């Protein structure tokens, strides 16, 4: 009898510590991702939960690459095979180093506006990020294929005009 009670307590402790562990280490925070609207004329804020912690900005970008849920009617903005090689934040600027896939689309104003503005709008939702410096395989480049200047950090303000009001 004592053994059974002891066992039950042990199991109970095990389960509760699992939940506590999950709450501490796998804490999720609500964030906003930006995707194209169904008609791809505007960007729309899409609320999701992302794993918190030191890698939060990286986790957010990876969720952005993954795209919205199928039933959301929203349109992904980034190439599925895009990789974030590194992400550093210094003086409120996020230095994001992308794989070459970021520029492999070659052209198309709608696509390019979607790529740049979804990244800038999504990252600058975070309090400690005011701008984004794009790097392609570690290098700064002057322009994206269609002619968006990316040599200097991009601030949120210029891209707010693309958000659906």
């Amino acid at each position, binding site marked *: 009898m004592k053994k059974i009670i002891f066992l039950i307590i042990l199991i109970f402790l095990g389960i509760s510590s699992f939940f506590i562990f999950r709450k501490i280490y796998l804490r999720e925070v609500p964030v906003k991702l930006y995707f194209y609207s169904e008609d791809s004329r505007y960007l729309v804020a899409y609320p999701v939960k992302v794993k918190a912690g030191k890698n939060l900005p990286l986790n957010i970008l990876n969720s952005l690459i993954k795209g919205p849920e199928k039933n959301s009617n929203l*349109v992904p903005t980034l190439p599925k095979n895009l990789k974030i090689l590194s992400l550093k934040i210094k003086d409120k600027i996020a230095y994001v180093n992308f794989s070459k896939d970021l520029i492999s689309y070659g*052209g198309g104003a709608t696509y390019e506006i979607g790529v740049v503005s979804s990244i800038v709008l999504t990252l600058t939702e975070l309090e400690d990020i005011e701008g984004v410096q794009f790097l392609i395989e570690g290098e700064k480049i002057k322009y994206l294929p269609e002619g*968006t200047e990316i040599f200097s950090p991009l601030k949120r303000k210029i891209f707010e005009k693309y958000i659906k009001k």
Partner: protein
Amino acid sequence: MRFKILFFLIFLFQSSFCFSEPWKFSTPSQDFEIEFVPKIIEGNFYIPLREILDKFSAEVLWHNKEKKLEFYVFKKRVIIQIENKNFLIDGKEKILTFPPVILEGEIFISLKSLSEILGFKYYVDMKNRFIKFITLINEIEIAKGKNVQINISLTLPARYRIEKLQSPERIVIDIQDSILDVEKKIYEIEEGAIKILRVSQYSTIPYITRLVIDLDVPLNFKIFSKENRITIEFNKQIKEVTYEISEETVKIKIEGTSSLIFIPREYREPWRLVFDFPECLLGIKEKEIKIEKGIVKGVRMSQFQIEPDIARIVIDLQARSCCKIYPEDKEILIEISWFTPSLNKKVVVIDPGHGGRQNGAISPSGVIEKEVNLEIAKNLYELLTSEGAFVIMTRTEDKEVTLEDRVSIANLNRADIFVSIHNNALPSNPAIRGTETYYHTPFSKSLAAAIQKRLTEEIKLPDRGIKVAGFVVIKKTNMPAVLVEVAYLTNPEDENLLKDTEFKKKTALGIFKGIKEYFENEQIIPSE
């Protein structure tokens, strides 16, 4: 007499003497009381150093072993040692009249020694238990870069009072409790409407230094003090607007004190051109130029807004104009002529997007954007030249041209308009199809609207509207400039159309009609 007040002499007191009530201090920037009472040792007046440094928000570090106190205050790094006359200031060794001492566990320094370290003057009012510090103004520097900056260095931070006076126009700044310690009293600035800075010891009871900046016209300015430096800053100015007339063209030259940034706009009823200059002051006395020759009625200038400063120049016109803008370093040349409702002799730059290694977007079945763009551009070239326009193509074959070169081709040829031809893509949403036209400055909006309207009428694809974007070819070109996205390579129906030669001819015809309408029809959409 002045020196008697300045350098207080304390009469003979015996060894040490303690005061019981709190002493009041007054510096040029703050008033405070101290808890520790000053002491008089062998006729010299000693004050508690750490308490004073705290009031000055100094960084302080005590090295107990060497009995050294290191502190950083008013941009000076100082190391003193107890019972030692030598001290270090910014790495240089100097000598104090009286060394610092420790009394009752506190560091005391003679007022004279502290004034030697920080470089101020003082006087002591024994009766009222009051000590006043007076700052020295030891440097005045004028910096003329993008903006004009007057930097005043003091030994202690100080409060100031500003007054703007008229006839003649001037700014007066009085710095409280300060002694002017510079040789030069007159600084000829001569930058636009900013003429001369004059400095003087305005009064000695109390000590006030007066700075007067003589101006031609009232100018907005910023004044800020950081620690022991006061800075007065003026934004760049428009310093001259001149004009000349040759035949039917009026040339207006706007000159700045440094490189000017501007936003041009066109308005109708009545027709006028409006140029806004952000972060800019109007340094010109005459606010109106009457021309009444050719197309230009006159030019009006104003300080449209202050903080942020925006200068505005309005060019009033008799009728719709044809306007070309040439920014060159510190000046902008605007050429204005009568609007001629025809394509004859108009300079049009056509920019087929991408080329060479830059394929642009590629459709699922392999249609390459750069090729489609070039074919449409060549068709457009034929149409425009047949109506007498002078057409320049940024490329006529499959070769790489940098975006900067495309911009320079348009700017150096002083084009009337710039039209970049592209095709769109959105791989993640193949259902999207249709036509869009992008522009950047409000100046280009009517051209974008005319092309979008005529093009969608001609090719009958969904009209996705005109949009603002910062693509470099429409951002850095000086004339009305647009980027046309004809159709989507990622949409199967649009893609099929782009394979069709007839469709590409129709596309060119639609753009051509839009350009023609822009040059012919006065019923354009007014800017903004």
